[in-house]
């Protein structure tokens, strides 16, 4: 009963490449999120979306963009990958209620060489 899926578990890219990370949820959630997870820094919000074609910057949006053309899909784009973007990227989705659970994907481990 997988609810949030991410396109890749591991990804290796070169500096300067354009990188696409895809996320799909099957719970009809309005809200979707992209985080990066780094040791000692916890989860940091990159971007989120509360509706199709709507997006809001999180705490660390620099170097990233997002796309939400369909309700179930939320993409994270690294326009020109850099080594400091090597990280674990987590996608999540959530309903509208204040106490709704946020469901996470398995994560994509991105390495930029």
């Amino acid at each position, binding site marked *: 009963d997988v609810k949030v899926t991410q396109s890749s578990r591991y990804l290796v890219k070169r500096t300067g490449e354009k990188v696409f990370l895809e996320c799909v949820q099957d719970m009809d959630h309005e809200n979707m999120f992209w985080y990066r997870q780094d040791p000692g820094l916890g*989860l940091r919000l990159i971007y989120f979306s509360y509706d199709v074609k709507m997006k809001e910057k999180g705490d660390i949006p620099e170097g990233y963009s997002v796309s939400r053309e369909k309700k179930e899909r939320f993409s994270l784009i690294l326009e020109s990958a850099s080594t400091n973007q090597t990280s674990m990227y987590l996608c999540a989705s*959530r309903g509208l209620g*204040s*106490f*709704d659970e946020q469901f996470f994907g398995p994560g994509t481990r991105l390495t930029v060489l």
Partner: protein
Amino acid sequence: AQRVTQPEKLLSVFKGAPVELKCNYSYSGSPELFWYVQYSRQRLQLLLRHISRESIKGFTADLNKGETSFHLKKPFAQEEDSAMYYCARNSGYSTLTFGKGTMLLVSP
């Protein structure tokens, strides 16, 4: 900005010992607080939410508004409790602000 502080990066205990993972939040009226857990090689998942006032896997957490704390407790730790634990709070637009996490290691 909303803040969540988890002062311990690592907590190491022996099996059967009590466990308390600390979480403090920045004050703002009526916070909505959660604990999430990530076991090795598994995805992050909800452990409990303060509104439920329930015990999950033997863990409880009490909201203390006076101390702005939401510490996670378990009277007798088990080896399978070893995981990374994140405290989180609602921050508007249905977003969550997470603490930096505490790694719990339970030794036999």
